[in-house]
């Protein structure tokens, strides 16, 4: 069988499109299955969060909430958006700029006991810099008019 040039070009274009379609599917699949959503402590408190997948929460580390277990590595603290507070447990070394009263973002899941088990704790490298997620959580809590803490500057 002789393949004409025109047919050949058509086949080529078809193969190219199929491959691009495959790549697009791959990318969007990966994208949707790796998206991590952000919730505020208030939303966690109301139970508006997924239970099977992980997510991020942000806010301030509640003052005097940091407790260390005897192994020196497991830490308990709570994250607050000034309206609600979520208890968090994390095993590992905390980032340099993790401090009580400062902004923080944690990624992980909520356990059946309501404690947020963090797999990752982020605090950014600038003394006065607030992670946008943490700032957002405070803003939303304030908008709901239930401020119970003075916002630190």
């Amino acid at each position: 069988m002789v393949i004409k040039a025109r047919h050949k070009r058509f086949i080529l274009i078809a193969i190219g499109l199929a491959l691009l379609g495959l790549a697009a599917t791959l990318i969007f699949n990966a994208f949707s299955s790796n998206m991590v959503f952000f919730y505020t402590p208030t939303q966690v408190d109301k139970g508006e969060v997924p239970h099977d997948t992980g997510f991020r929460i942000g806010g301030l580390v509640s003052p005097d909430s940091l407790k260390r277990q005897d192994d020196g590595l497991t830490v308990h603290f709570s994250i607050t958006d000034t309206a609600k507070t979520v208890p968090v447990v994390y095993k590992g070394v905390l980032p340099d700029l993790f401090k009580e009263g400062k902004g923080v973002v944690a990624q992980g899941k909520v356990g059946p006991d309501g404690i947020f088990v963090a797999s990752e704790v982020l605090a950014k490298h600038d003394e006065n810099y607030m992670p946008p997620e943490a700032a957002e959580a405070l803003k939303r809590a304030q908008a709901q008019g239930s401020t119970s803490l003075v916002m630190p500057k």
Partner: protein
Amino acid sequence: MIPEIGHFALILALLVSLVLGTLPIIGAASGNAVWMGLARPAARAQFLLIAVAFVCLAYAFAAMDYSVMYVAANSNSKLPIQFRIAAVWGGHEGSLLLWAMILSIWTVAVSLFSKHLPDDMRARILGVMGLVSVGFLLFMLMVSNPFERLIPAALDGRDLNPLLQDPGMIFHPPMLYMGYVGFSVAFAFSIAALLGGQLDAAWARWSRPWTTLAWVFLTLGIMAGSNWAYYELGWGGWWFWDAVENASFMPWLVGTALIHSLAVTEKRGSFKAWTVLLAICAFSLSLLGTFLVRSGVLTSVHAFATDPRRGLFILAFLVVVIGGSLALFAWRAPTIGRGGKFSVISRESFLLANNVLLAVAAISVLLGTLYPLFLDALGFGKISVGPPYFDSVFAPLMAPALFLMGIGPIARWKNASLPELAKRLRWAFGVSIATAIILPLLLGNLTPMIGLGLFLAVWVFATTANLVYQRLRGSDQALITRIKSTPRSWWGMVAAHLGIAVFTVGVTIVKGYESEIAVRMAPGDVAHLAGFDFTFVGVDEIQGPNYSASRGQLRVTKNGVERTVLTSEKRLYTVTNMPMTEAGISPAVIHDLYASLGEPLTDGAWSVRIYHKPMVEWIWFGCLMMGFGGILALSDRRYRIKKRSKDEALANEAVA
């Protein structure tokens, strides 16, 4: 007084760049030789003026002039002199000045090394670069002037962000910017070609060395950044898919596609429109990178400045540059003409496939970087896509690209034969498969990703070896003559491809076999990792120039034999009150041992993180090889023999 001189020089530079950006281009359109001739002196004047401004700012830093707001915000009298100078580009305003300065360096370089170009072409190229410069100088003078005074002057500066107080700060940003801004030359060549309607093999030959040089800088700049993050952040990671890293990686991916596409345009006259589009995209992504990093839209360590006016200006600038050049492309590209034909199995096809894969990879990075920002800006909530997204997208996209990389250089131009290729590469394929299975089994862990990574790395090694062997064998000449008679640009390709293979080995091994522990250690405690024993000696207090630190030492032994001592510091920078970790690293070809102090616990104990990173140094060595390959290609004879290319340019002109 000195800062005012700098400010004034910037204003003059803007005026000169306005002349450079308009008259030569108009002159080229109307055939006015005098106006075209303005391009070269204007490029030089612009460079001198911006250099004066740059030196003035550096002087203000060196002389600790805290009546300049930017100096007061980014320096301190206790900051060592090398960091005071590097602090010139430590913040928003100064890094833009660095950008403009580097752009003027590239512009003046083009004006110096373009004697062989037709007058109108040179006038257009320098003009386009002048227009880009207008945008940046205007931006600086309008919303981010580095020379702005602070009255009354501060007693002392607020200090440079401790994260940036590192030798990496001296090399990484200038290298990276040389790469970013270097793509402006390829961009200007493309716009000039679209304006002039002249796009031929000669155009590609002129454009190629500039693009390669920019690519070399970008490669080395990214490498320096990755290495810096590895030892500075204390997490043992070398790439975080952070938006700032992505911002530099996207132009790299497109730039890599561009240097290959340019090769086809030069050798075969094909892919012309595609090459032009890639050049526009590479530079647009560089601009976007600057925007992402410098406008404060990101949740990232690099984005210190938050000023909506600045963001708006850069956004408008981006729209004008990208939109304008794409519109010009859509309008003029149909006149470019088609190149030579090629069959489905040919080097052109393989290169095209690689180009498409690289472009798709760049798009996937763009999506992952920008989509969360869009959602946020539109009020649809905050999301993030982390490393898992990029990892799962990159492996399937880069695997075929690496596979094709082995075949492309061996395939013939225009029309290659698949059975012949298969026959020639069957040994390489066998060796790769065997290594990919046997080696992981020997190392005790075979996963699909390790197997795939090793297969691809060995495949690139083996096919490149085959390529070199075929090239050098079978003639009567002495081997050394044959090596010398092969063009350096060809050896450059070999070196760069081997660099990719070395890089792939590093990534595969470190991802597959790295291990880490986080432990509580009191003095005298011993931790075990990867067959090594780490004894915590203890912590002593030391005093740095602008910080105080706790320095912890770990003695590393294997089977009782002392191997090395890892020293990690936990610093507290006194001015900014920021803690910083300095990791203790023992680098080696086979593996790195890496330790960083966590937090002080009770009874003199500390939490300590220890990492075993096998072959991680190969990652950066591979990048160095790629950069070396680029430099080798640039040293090719045909770029050095000025007279010949001049004659050719004349001949081409006569034909056109």
